[in-house]
């Protein structure tokens, strides 16, 4: 565990409520440790590889700034505080306009992280949208009513660990009734020099009553093929009354990388949380989404797709808690598993007592491409109210030989035919993404 618990100085240790949260996180993680084969929630995804002691954590970028430490240790430094740097040394990129912007086929408010650190280049935001670093939100107390409120430290060891090292991340608030015109895009670049890096990222997203927003997360690896690192992400998401958040995620990590993410969303009455995640890459990639449908008429759509080769384990885990009457959730997950890879889907629909007139549906389908591919599925219903409509389905199989033959007989090459079928298979769920240009981009990434 040495690798995951390291003695590093973090910013904000003098803020009691915040430091208190971190300490609780550390205690909870020490109690639980890295999950083992006996941990039910991690039954199929073995986080052995995460329990390595050669991970390296970033020093606090914020402390460096506030204590002036960076003047001595500027090399490879400080993308976050450009104009304050006066070192003028060769190789220092401070003071330059760092161009991290990426070309995407759709417009949006881009925010960037590089190897787990926020790059302080802000887009011009319209009125009614506030974006700041997590630490700013902590210092100004903005984050206080939200931070840590949704995460159950005792059941999510990696979220507890994330809480212990909270520092990097952003706070996004969409004010009441503001309808955001373009998506907020969080691009997480990981470069080759991130070898063995272990970073924690904590984002807070608050969509106030009647507001409407779209958030895109892109974990984009651009370094050498074999880079190994561990990204541990927690998003706390608040969808208030009548608000709507569409949350799309593209996980494009290095194939030896590890990516564990927990999305904790709370939806109030008439609120709508629409999530989609496309997983590709990573050695272990787990995208876990927990939604609390807290009040009547709260709705969640949680969809996902994964496509994998090599020996990856990609894991989609969901837990939808219907806590009030007349709440609705729908889940559709599709996966394509090749190589020696293992696909994991664990989906749970929980319906609390008295949460009547509720509807929860879930469907998981997977395609196995090779003899060594594996799929493990655990769709779960936990129901404590009688007047509900709940269903789940799961199916797995291979590409239909009859169809392949038919396509071949029409002159389409076998590999091409397979690709066409795989694309069509995934299209079914990617089509659930409402934003047409984002949908097209995701399809493009899926086929890449």
């Amino acid at each position: 565990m040495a690798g995951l618990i390291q003695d590093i100085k973090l910013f904000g240790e003098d803020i009691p409520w915040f430091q208190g949260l971190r300490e609780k996180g550390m205690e909870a993680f020490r109690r639980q440790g890295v999950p083992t084969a006996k941990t039910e929630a991690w039954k199929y995804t073995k986080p052995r590889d995460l329990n390595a002691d050669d991970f390296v954590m970033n020093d606090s970028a914020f402390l460096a700034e506030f204590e002036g430490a960076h003047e001595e240790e500027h090399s490879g430094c400080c993308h976050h505080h450009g104009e304050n740097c006066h070192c003028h040394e060769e190789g220092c990129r401070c003071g330059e306009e760092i161009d991290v912007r990426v070309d995407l086929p759709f417009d949006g408010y881009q925010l960037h992280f590089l190897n787990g650190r926020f790059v302080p280049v802000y887009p011009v935001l319209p009125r009614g949208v506030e974006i700041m670093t997590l630490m700013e939100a902590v210092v100004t107390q903005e984050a206080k009513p939200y931070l840590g409120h949704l995460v159950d430290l005792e059941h999510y060891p990696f979220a507890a660990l994330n809480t212990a090292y909270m520092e990097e991340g952003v706070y996004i608030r969409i004010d009441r009734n503001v309808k955001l015109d373009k998506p907020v895009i969080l691009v997480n670049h990981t470069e080759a020099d991130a070898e063995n890096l272990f970073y924690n990222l904590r984002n807070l997203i608050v969509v106030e009553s009647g507001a409407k927003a779209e958030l895109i997360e892109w974990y984009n690896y651009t370094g050498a093929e074999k880079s190994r690192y561990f990204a541990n992400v927690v998003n706390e998401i608040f969808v208030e009354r009548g608000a709507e958040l569409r949350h799309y995620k593209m996980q494009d990590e290095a194939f030896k990388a590890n990516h564990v993410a927990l999305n904790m969303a709370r939806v109030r009455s008439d609120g709508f949380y629409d999530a989609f995640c496309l997983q590709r890459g990573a050695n272990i990639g787990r995208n876990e989404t927990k939604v609390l449908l807290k009040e009547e008429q709260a709705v969640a759509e949680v969809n996902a797709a994964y496509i994998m080769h090599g020996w990856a384990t990609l894991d989609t885990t969901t837990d939808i808690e219907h806590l009030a009457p007349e709440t609705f959730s729908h889940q559709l997950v599709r996966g394509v598993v090749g190589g020696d890879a293992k696909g994991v889907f664990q989906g749970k629909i929980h319906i609390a007592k008295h949460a009547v007139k509720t509807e929860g549906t879930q469907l998981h389908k997977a395609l196995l491409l090779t003899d060594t591919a594996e799929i493990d599925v655990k769709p779960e219903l936990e129901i404590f109210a009688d007047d509900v409509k709940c269903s789940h389905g799961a199916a797995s199989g291979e590409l239909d030989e009859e169809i392949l033959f038919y396509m071949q007989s029409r002159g389409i090459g076998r590999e091409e035919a397979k690709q066409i079928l795989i694309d069509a298979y995934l299209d079914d769920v990617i089509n659930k993404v409402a934003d047409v240009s984002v949908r097209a981009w995701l399809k493009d990434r899926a086929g890449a």
Partner: protein
Amino acid sequence: MVKEKPEIADESGDKYKYGFVTDIAADTAPKGLNEDIIRLISHKKGEPEWLLEWRLKAFAFWQTMTEPSWAKLSYEKIDYQDLYYYSAPKQKAAPKSLDEVDAELLKTYEKLGIPLKEQEALAGVVAVDAVFDSVSVATTYRAKLAEMGIIFCSISEAVKEHPDLVRKYLGSVVPYTDNFFACLNSAVFTDGSFVYIPKGVRCPMELSTYFRINARNTGQFERTLIVAEDDSYVSYLEGCTAPQRDENQLHAAIVEIVVLKNAEVKYSTVQNWYPGDKDGKGGVYNFVTKRAACRGENSKISWTQVETGSAVTWKYPSCVLQGDNSVGEFYSVAITNNRQQADTGTKMIHIGKNTTSKIISKGISAGFSNQTYRGLVRVAPNARGARNYSQCDSLLIGENCGSHTVPYIENRNKTAVIEHEATTSKISDEQMFYCLQRGIGEEEAVSLIVNGFCKEVMQHLPMEFAIEAAKLINVSLEGSVG
């Protein structure tokens, strides 16, 4: 008189029951579990050394195990040293007349249409053989079966008369290391049934562990072993639709089935142990390990169960499909009412090629009860062409019960096709009103709809069993509406 009746020995092992009465009335073993108790059990049963050794090994292993806690069940911790593992059939507690018997129990008998004499026997007022001419029934059957080479006797008897068969198969499907309760059973099992169907024989009648009532005192740790040789067939019925007066709190049984090439075994269970009262007081804890190994090509095992009794049920009849083209089926109706808890389902382990399995599970929860379907479908890397279809439906009656579905699906072969569907619903107001509008009363309507809901499973029960089971469902749901 006892000595004149050794030939009674019907399938529940009465021979030994009578033996016990005379032998140990004076030396009932004390509470608690240790090697001496196991030696005593083995000695009293006149077992060979190898079986004692096996029991002792199981006991040693059991001491290293912990009771499983993963099931969605909550019950008071069982003190294993506070139980009797060897005792004479209870006589002291028997009521003297039906007047002394719980009125609720009598009502149930009446609804199930059980004749008075039988009711007395069930309640323990009179001896079983005072009701049925079980001697003649048993001997007639046994003679007929013996002609065909079928062995159907108590397992204790089989240990003595067919030691090679028992030694070859006992523990071969459920090893004593399998799980906590199976291990306990292996150490202390008291009796149970043994069935052997020789090659090419179709058993001409349904074999039944009990004629309705002679199950009394079979014991808490029952062990059944069924072996079906190549090209054979047998249908086996276990249980009884009438709730039995039972002082045993803990039951930990094992059923092992070996199915060889082209053979087929149907195993049907109706379980209606005492479920405890309305407030959850009393009732049986039922921790059962049932497993069938389809060892030969084209072999088939079919489990059908109707579970309505017990305060706590922990039971997953499983199919290990080793032979190519072998087939496993699991049809289940589980009903929980009041404060009952059931965590039940199946495991389908596909190992051979082109193996198929089917799971149809119907769960009905009422009152304050909680029920979980827990199932595993696993396809091993070499199980090319494996097929599974699972359908798990739950029906909730009332707003205070819970219904949970936890399937595990593990596929390691791309050619396997696995489908799982589950739904949860309640009896709709529309259906209810439709029945009422045609003059059908509320309870009758519920039972109609519930029986309709369970139909896919019930039709797999042997006819006479199915009729009783349908009645039982109605009785189990009483008081769940209105």
